[in-house]
Structures are given as C-alpha cells and as structure tokens.
C-alpha cells in the first residue's frame, strides 16, 4: 500500500519544505505585525485604534481563501503585478496578524490595573513599563492562543495552493493526478501535516495548564 507514498516521498518532502518556509514567513511576519498592532490597539491614539479595529474586523471576518483571492485579483487591477508566492504570503500574513492583534490586545487587557499603578508609582515611563511589566506578563497569557494560531497558520498555507502556489498540498494533488493513489498519498501527506501541527497542540494544552496565573482568574 505504502510503496506509492514512499516512492514519491522525496517530492512530497520538497513540498513540505515549501510549506514550512511559507509557515515560517506567515508566523514570523504575522507575529511582528500583530504584536505592534496589538500594543497600538491598546495604547495608540484614537484614530489608530479605530483603524486597527477596522482591519481586525475585516480580516477576521473574511474567510482565508477569500483573502488569498483578494490579494491575487485586486493588486493587478491597480497595476501591481505581484508574484503569486508574494501575494499568497502577504494574504496569509495579514490574515494571521489580525488574530495575533486580538490575542495581544486581549492579553494586555487581562493584566490587572494595580500592576500599572504600581509601575507608575515606581516612576516607570510608558516604554519601560511595557517592556518590563506589561509585555512579559502578556506573553504568558498569550502563549497558548499564539501556539493555536501557529497551528492555524500552518494549516492555512495549504489554501495558497488554490491560486497556484507550489507547496505540500499542491504537490500531493500532482502526485495523485499522476498515480491515482488518492488514499496512500493524501493520508501520507496528512501524516506530514500532523507531525508539524500535533506537537504544537500538545505543547499548547500543557502550557495552558502550567502558565495559568491562579490569582488572576
């Protein structure tokens, strides 16, 4: 049964490499953008807060696949012809970052106000207070949801195959169209995705129990 899978494994692993690269880009840039926007959504001036709220509303409300298609069809209308990898990666980053923005904003909001009063009374200004008091605690709250977001990001990279990005799911379809071995290939590829995602979900649920701060509940 599995000989078809193993015969095509090198090709599929090349696809997995593209999936991992796309995931790293999505998560890396998503984290950077989402953290900045999450902090601004809490501490920024009103117009900035409003703009971030609109961004989060739109990108969390839209299906990922629609975001991928929008970044694929709309830029050429304005005369920008983006490479399909670039347009798909941008779409995934903006989608993932919208969720991260909410996670970060929520985590900052979960820090009890007396902490801020205490930091102020110690004479800390906003920047050191953020760096020393707020963000380290916010990180603790947000680690499990951020890991879940990472799992989601890995899974949604497969959607970029629909606009022609060559990665693991695209490679799997090519192999199935050539060999007709739908079960062997798709189940084998599911196993590859599972190996990428499952350890993260185990870590996430363990951290959720370990990192909870009882007195904050």
């Amino acid at each position: 049964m599995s000989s078809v899978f193993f015969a095509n494994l090198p090709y599929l692993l090349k696809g997995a490499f593209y999936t991992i690269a796309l995931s790293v880009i999505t998560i890396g840039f998503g984290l950077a953008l989402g953290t900045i926007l999450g902090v601004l959504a809490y501490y920024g001036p009103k117009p900035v807060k409003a703009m971030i709220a609109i961004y989060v509303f739109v990108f969390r409300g839209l299906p990922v696949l629609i975001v991928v298609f929008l970044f694929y069809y709309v830029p050429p209308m304005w005369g920008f012809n983006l490479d399909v990898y670039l347009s798909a990666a941008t779409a995934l980053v903006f989608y993932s970052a919208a969720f991260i923005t909410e996670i970060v904003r929520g985590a900052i909001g979960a820090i009890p106000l007396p902490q801020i009063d205490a930091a102020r009374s110690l004479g800390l200004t906003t920047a050191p207070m953020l760096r020393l008091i707020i963000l380290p605690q916010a990180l603790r709250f947000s680690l499990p949801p951020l890991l879940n977001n990472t799992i989601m990001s890995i899974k949604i990279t497969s959607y970029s195959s629909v606009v022609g990005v060559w990665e693991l799911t695209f490679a799997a379809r090519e192999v199935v169209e050539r060999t007709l071995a739908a079960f062997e290939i798709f189940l084998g590829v599911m196993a590859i995705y599972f190996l990428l995602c499952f350890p993260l979900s185990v870590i996430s649920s363990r951290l959720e129990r370990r990192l909870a701060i009882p007195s904050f509940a």
Partner: protein
Amino acid sequence: MEGIQAVLVNVARLLPRLTDGILVTLEVSALALIWSIVWSLVLLPLRMSSVAGVAQVTRGYVELVRNTPLLLQMYLLYFGLPLLSLPLSAMATGVLAIGLQHGAYLVEIYRAAIRSISRDQHDAARALGLRPFTAFRLIIFPQALMRVLAPLTNQSIVLVKDTTLVSAITVMDLTLVGKMIAERSAASDAFVVVAAFYLALTSILGLLHRVIEHRYAQRT
C-alpha cells in the same frame, strides 16, 4: 460620488450571477452545520466512553482531523470516495468533509463545558440521591448547554468561512462563481463584492455570538 456610483452599478450588474452562488453557499453552510452537530453528538459518548480503547481511538480521530488542513481532508474524500465505489456529488463530499472536521471541534467544546462545571455539583446531585445519568441530565447537562451556546456560535462562523473550500472541488458556491466572473470577464472587482457578502454573513453571526455570550455569560 462617481466612484460609489460605479461600484453600485457594478454590484447591480453582477448580482444576478452571484445570487446563485450565494444560495449554494447558504445551502452548504446549513447542511454542514447540521451534519457537524449530528456527527459531534455521535462522537461525544465515544470520546467520553469508559470502554477500553474507545475513547483513545476517538481522541486519535479528533486530533488527526484538527491537526491537518481541511482542504486536504476534502481532497481525500473527493478523490478517494470514487475509488471505493462511493461516488458522492461534489457538494455532498464538501458537506461531509466540513462536518467530519467541525464535529471534532464541537466535541472538544462540549468536553470543556462539561469539565467547567464543578465536581461539587455532581457530588451534590449524587448526595440528593440522583443516579449518575439523572444527575447528568438534570444538573450537569442544562448548565453545560448554556456554556456551549456561545462557543458553538463562534464555531459556526469558522464553519461558514470554511465552506469556501468547496470551491476547490468544483462546487459552484459564491467563491467559485466570483472566481469565474473574475477570470472570464476580467471583472476582478466581482471579488470585492463576494468578499463583502462573506463579511456581512460572518458579521451577522458574530453579532449573534455577542448577544448569546452576553445573555448566558453572567448566569453560569
């Protein structure tokens, strides 16, 4: 002003073609939601079973479908079922795949809700002389149901968003109709109208989620 007018003219021009897609999207969403709830209610007793192995096998299934992309699961069924001489329509295959994954998510929502009800409640019910099943039916279940409603609505938003994937297995839903208009008639702005519709749909469900959360959050 002219910009807005142009957009409205475009929407009016595209609407008849998009309507068919909207109806298919709503149909897939409704069927997949019903099927995922049915499937989750089949999985729940298996997941919580005390019979050796049953809970473990069910957990394996739940973890597998939650940790792999839905698109891949859909391809597996779409290309695999005909090989088993089970030729389902593309739409039925899409609905089946969505329900198989979302049922697994729902089971975890139920479990979290049941676990969140304190052990004391169960003990108190037992102390009053209720049998384990009666205690579950009268004490645990009604409270768990309250706590399930909000996350269930939230999950249904994810489900509606996931219906877009049926476009990848040839179902003529709103996504595929929009894609075909965008490609054939070079009317890429069709996709903006499509996106606006999805945003409206998930916003309505989001509003429902907030209402439910508000109503049931304080009572439990």
